């Protein structure tokens, strides 16, 4: 881990009074390598190291404290701060029903997360309704309906011959009639460079007017995490991020990449395939993983 990697470097900082640009340059190189190995985007690493240097340079070394550990603590704290120091909640509508829009690349976990969210909402006393506008992926509509049944949560009956915008309008009407107060809209996975599909998503957003747009991202995504996140943020917007598949052994550097380029708070973590495996985001846990 990072502390071990600093072993040799620390000896050189030992006995010095202050951390300087010079005497921490070696440790900054180790941090850079650790972050790149953890899949943090190379441009994001550059900015992060610059921010850490700003925090570290001029800091007095504390007596009895190993300076290497001091540097690690500064790095760790800066990482936790960047990832989002506090837990953020769903933005509910001030009055009337709330609409939550799920967005993201193919296979990131949107449909599964939609169901997990529904379960959380139900347990908090809300009455959610689900709707899928994924008329493209084979059996996507069935997938959400099966999950809704497992939770005993209503799923609007969309079919593949319907137009996504019409599905949205009809689902909003159904929402009023059933007395449900949250509508979660599951969308088809799409590429940020697919103009037609990004335009469709923009029109869906315009139609349902969500107070929460969750970008669902696979936590094992590599360097490309910044490209998709940036595009989705600029073209559609996002009020929160869900990182999925954190029950694996990926270091999860995509978390830092996505947070840094979009500024959107990471709100939830998917930690399993089961419908009860969605947790509130814990920045310290992810920081620990990223630093290895």
């Amino acid at each position, binding site marked *: 881990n990072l502390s071990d990697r600093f072993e040799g470097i620390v000896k050189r900082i030992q006995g010095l009074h202050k951390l300087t640009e010079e005497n921490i340059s070696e440790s900054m190189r180790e941090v850079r390598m650790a972050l790149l190995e953890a899949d943090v*985007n190379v441009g994001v690493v550059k900015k992060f190291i610059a921010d850490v240097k700003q925090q570290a340079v001029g800091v007095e070394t504390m007596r009895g404290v190993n300076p290497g550990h001091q540097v690690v603590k500064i790095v760790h704290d800066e990482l936790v701060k960047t990832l989002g120091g506090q837990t953020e909640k769903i933005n509910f509508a001030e009055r009337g029903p709330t609409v939550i829009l799920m967005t993201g690349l193919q*296979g990131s976990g949107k449909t599964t997360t939609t169901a997990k969210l529904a379960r959380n909402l139900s347990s908090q006393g809300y009455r959610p309704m689900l709707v899928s506008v994924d008329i493209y992926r084979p059996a996507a509509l069935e997938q959400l309906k*099966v999950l809704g049944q497992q939770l005993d949560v209503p799923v609007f009956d969309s079919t593949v011959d319907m137009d996504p915008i019409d599905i949205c309008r009809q689902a909003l009407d159904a929402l009023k009639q059933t007395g449900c107060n949250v509508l979660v809209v599951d969308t088809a996975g799409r590429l940020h460079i697919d103009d037609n599909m990004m335009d469709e998503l923009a029109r869906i957003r315009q139609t349902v007017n969500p107070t929460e747009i969750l970008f669902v991202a696979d936590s094992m995504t590599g360097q490309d995490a910044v490209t998709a996140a940036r595009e989705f943020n600029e073209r559609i917007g996002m009020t929160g991020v869900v990182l999925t598949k954190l029950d*694996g*052994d*990926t270091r999860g550097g995509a978390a830092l990449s996505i947070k840094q380029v979009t500024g959107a708070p990471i709100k939830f973590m998917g930690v399993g395939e089961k419908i009860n495996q969605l947790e509130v985001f814990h920045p310290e846990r992810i920081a620990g993983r990223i630093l290895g």
Partner: protein
Amino acid sequence: IGSHTKLDDDFMDELEEVLFSSDIGVDITMRIVNDLRRDVKKNLLKDTSEVIGFIESELVSIVRGAKVEPVDATVETKPYVILVIGVNGAGKTTTIGKIASRFTARGESVLLAAADTFRAAAIDQLATWAQRSGSDLVSHKNGSDPSAVVFDALKAARARGCDVLIADTAGRLHSKVNLMEELKKVKRIISRELPGAPHETLLVLDATTGQNAVSQARIFDEAIGVTGIALTKLDGTAKGGVVLNIMETLKIPVKLVGVGERIEDLRPFVPEDFVHAIFS
């Protein structure tokens, strides 16, 4: 990077960044950059286009190291069994639809085994691909034993004289011991029923995946042996550079590339095109 002409520090930094952003990883990137700095010092490389050429050939030689047998080679044993594995959402089920259609397009009969008995609507999804590709399907109820599905599918394939059997499995994270045990059992059942099978164990990797792909490949390979990789979603902006590390350290070849969500969006892996795309 194409706008640079001088081999200065700016160019080297930018080059390093291009290599990192393609997910090639720290080890290979640093090795290439160090070899480069050494050759530039010795004046062996004079300008930026020579450098790009130098790197491309170094990367292609990594890729060429693994010996490749195409996935849709002429079917000699019947049924030719392909076991498709990989982590959640990588593109296994979709890739199976694409592969199946290549076999049926040249007149071979295909049977699909719906051994993802866990995920909601997984069987329906595969059934649609069976229909689209003109393949038969063997499936059990949701929640049934995947090994039982594969066992039945093998029996059916032999009884019907099918040329190819492709088994779809549930997505699973390699770090989950019980799921890896389930996969080992599926493979054991196949090998016991038909010695020599599965003839191809295809690991499906998402091109957007970072360094975790290396541990995915290593662990799936240690568990049941991986004979080839299908790299999906290369129609996005991710370069999939992590496969260079996999090909070099594990010697597992990338055989197929997924470039979209339609049935025809499958191509054989071409090293030069793949490496060239990293710099375009």
